[in-house]
């Protein structure tokens, strides 16, 4: 099957599955992911691995768009009001999750390198699926606001601590013929570059977007501008070894801070992007290898349990310290279960950088991602509906073709 027919199948299947899961009171995201699993190589095999690698361009764009809209929460006024609390909660929940996973791995006799790398990966909460669930539930309130803030910061924290651990591993195994400073530069520079450079790139693209957006009125043109800018941002980021994640978020943050009518852009986005998201989640689902679940092993179970407990406890403690209401405390951790994109990205980095540890880590993380992709969106939706922040979506009546 060629790429175009795969794409068509993916979209239709996603829509169908989205309808189907509504009856089961599951989030649409889960429907897309399940549709992906069904058409993907693990089950029906309608979409092959070759198709998937071609279609990964769409995933990149979709992820960039999602993170772009996530970036809008970094509005300076909002950072001033809730930033400190969110930062603290993020720090607590991710460090406790990392601590539990690392401790569990060490207790199981894994080398410290594997334990710490897994710990840092455990910090990550998938931005895309969580954000989609929030958007689907049309949620607004303390919980969804905190969750949005946390997943924005959380990914950055995860990236930083991963880079630090990787740098330490590089330093301990560095061969003595290479100077210490050289090794330090080799291992720490990418981190600084990824943080500073990505923000700089995102800022530049954001300025371009904001200044051009004032000249554009029509909705279609706005979509073209937006997608063009995001493609440019992702492309340049990949070219310069920057983090597409941070760069895309910075575009959103820059835009929401610079442009008074950024709301217009974000709403334009929400009307343009659903096909991209559907493709993104179906591809993510098709990429899941169900066979991995069988090989999850003791390590995988410890990882899943440690991370879930850590997220839950950490979020609870953090929310209590920040003085958030009881209902947020209870449901915050549940909403943060998803894990996908960055975790998979980090395992790919480990494969390349530390091939000696990649076997154990890949097995654990990829199997855990299968679990979390299934339960993550469901638990996020549960948290949002139970906390009473969900609101019925205003349906936009489609114009009938036959009138």
């Amino acid at each position, binding site marked *: 099957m060629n790429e175009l027919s795969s794409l068509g199948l993916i979209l239709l299947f996603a829509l169908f599955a989205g309808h189907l899961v509504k009856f089961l009171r599951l989030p649409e995201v889960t429907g897309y992911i399940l549709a992906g699993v069904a058409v993907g190589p693990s089950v029906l095999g309608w979409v092959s691995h070759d198709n998937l690698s071609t279609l990964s361009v769409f995933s990149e764009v979709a992820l960039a768009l999602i993170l772009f809209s996530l970036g809008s929460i970094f509005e300076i006024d909002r950072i001033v009001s809730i930033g400190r609390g969110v930062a603290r909660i993020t720090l607590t929940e991710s460090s406790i999750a990392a601590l539990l996973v690392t401790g569990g791995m060490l207790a199981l006799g894994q080398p410290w390198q594997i334990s710490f790398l897994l710990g840092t990966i455990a910090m990550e909460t998938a931005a895309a699926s969580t954000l989609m669930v929030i958007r689907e539930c049309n949620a607004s309130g303390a919980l969804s606001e905190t969750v949005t803030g946390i997943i924005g910061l959380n990914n950055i924290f995860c990236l930083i601590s991963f880079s630090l651990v990787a740098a330490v591993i590089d330093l301990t195994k560095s061969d003595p013929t290479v100077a210490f400073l050289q090794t330090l530069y080799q291992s720490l520079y990418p981190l600084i*570059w990824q943080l*500073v*450079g990505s923000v*700089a790139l995102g800022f530049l693209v954001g300025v371009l977007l904001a200044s051009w957006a004032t000249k554009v009125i029509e909705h279609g043109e706005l979509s073209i501008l937006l997608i063009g800018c995001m493609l440019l941002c992702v492309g340049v980021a990949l070219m*310069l070894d920057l983090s597409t994640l941070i760069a895309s978020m910075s575009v959103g943050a820059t835009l929401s801070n*610079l442009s008074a009518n950024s709301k217009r852009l974000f709403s334009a986005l929400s009307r343009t992007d659903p096909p991209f998201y559907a493709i993104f989640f179906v591809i993510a689902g098709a990429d899941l290898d169900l066979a991995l679940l069988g090989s999850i092993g003791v390590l995988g179970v410890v990882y899943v349990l440690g991370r879930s407990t850590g997220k839950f406890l950490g979020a609870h403690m953090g929310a209590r310290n920040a003085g958030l209401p009881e209902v947020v405390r209870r449901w915050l951790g549940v909403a943060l279960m998803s894990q996908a994109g960055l975790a998979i990205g980090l395992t790919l980095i480990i494969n390349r950088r530390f091939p000696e540890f990649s076997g154990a880590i890949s097995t654990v993380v990829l199997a855990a991602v299968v679990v979390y992709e299934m339960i993550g969106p469901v638990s996020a939706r549960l948290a949002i509906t139970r906390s009473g922040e969900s609101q019925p979506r205003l349906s936009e009546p489609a114009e009938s073709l036959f009138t």
Partner: protein
Amino acid sequence: MRYWLSDKRYLALLILIAVLILVVGSWLRPRRQTAELVVSEAERLRLQYLAQQRSLQDFTSYFERVAGGFGTHLVRLKEPPATGLVWEGTGVMVPGLPRNHPSDFTLRLDSSEFRASPVLVVPQLPISVLESRLSRGLQAVNRTEASALKPGKWVLLMIRQEDGSTGYSPGFFSSISTTQCGDHVVKEIVTSIPLDISKLGGGLFDLDGHLLGMVLQCGQRLASISTVSLNLLLQVASRPEGRLLQNYGIRLSELDTRAAAHFRHAEGVLISEVWKGSPAERAGLVPGDILTRWETAAVRTMEDLNPLLPKSSEGVANIEVVRGRRVVRMTLEAISGGWWSRVVSTAALGLQIEPPAAGYLIASAEPGSPAQSVGMRAGDRVMMIDGRSVSRQQATQLLKTATADKPIYVLVSREDKTIGVLLP
């Protein structure tokens, strides 16, 4: 904040900073490229030259040219037939010489012949060293470690043939493996070149003219032994144990606590091996004797012995050994070129006569058994136990009842040597 940002000048400044960050940052970024390994100029030229060769003929002529430069390192040993390598100065390394080797050798270089005498001949060492009386025309080899080689590299195996001409076989280096060569563990260079007896003593060179290894007899087969191992073997031979073995035919070992308790003697050095036909055997030494005095100096440990050993390989030494409760004095004679050559030759009439087999044959030694772990093998013959000749019944009985608290000292005969072993 928003008003501040909306000021065009500040915004322009920020944009400038961002652009600067991107430009400088991407310029500073470490490049993760697969570095191409440094190729020496000589190697590059050679590759270039080899790449231009179109036929086997061209290759052959190239190797011939390279091999032609190695002739000064190679000599031919007439009897026993082998190639020798000029090792250092006038020292020529040849494959390990056999028992009853002559004390004078004829070496051949191109068309000239010259004489050489043995300076290092240790029983069962795969190498020997001859001292040539001619230095003109000889050039010591440049040695290098084969571990620096990459698999697939060209190597040349060079020999000097009987008529004085040199011969070579080209091949590829494949790997380095560890192999057992007599009592020694050595590094073997594995190449694509088939080894046969005509290549014995041949040198394995890389195309830069460095010696990588030498073809030597290892048990029943031939192997290219790396230069590192050759150096190690030379060191072993020059240590006191090796020198004692070479000059007198004895091997010594430290008197450990178990042995000291068994022999009821605390100081001295235990004679653990005596070679048949050696000056030591002729003087009457047997394994189990404890050396306590060399000339006038007392010997307590192996270290004491080192400075006492004579520098020259000839001469007479008066020693004192403790055997049981008696102190025995004897005179050891060292023979130039090794007593190894004086061992009674029975090959004169073309007959090899084996001495009558004495003692009880050890038919098998179980792997992992105490006997095997101390070095006894199937084929050894039990000659004496605790200094006494024993009947078969007694031997069986004693071997059966020996315990760790009450060990027995067994003398076994193996090939050309008599060995003492404390069992179990």
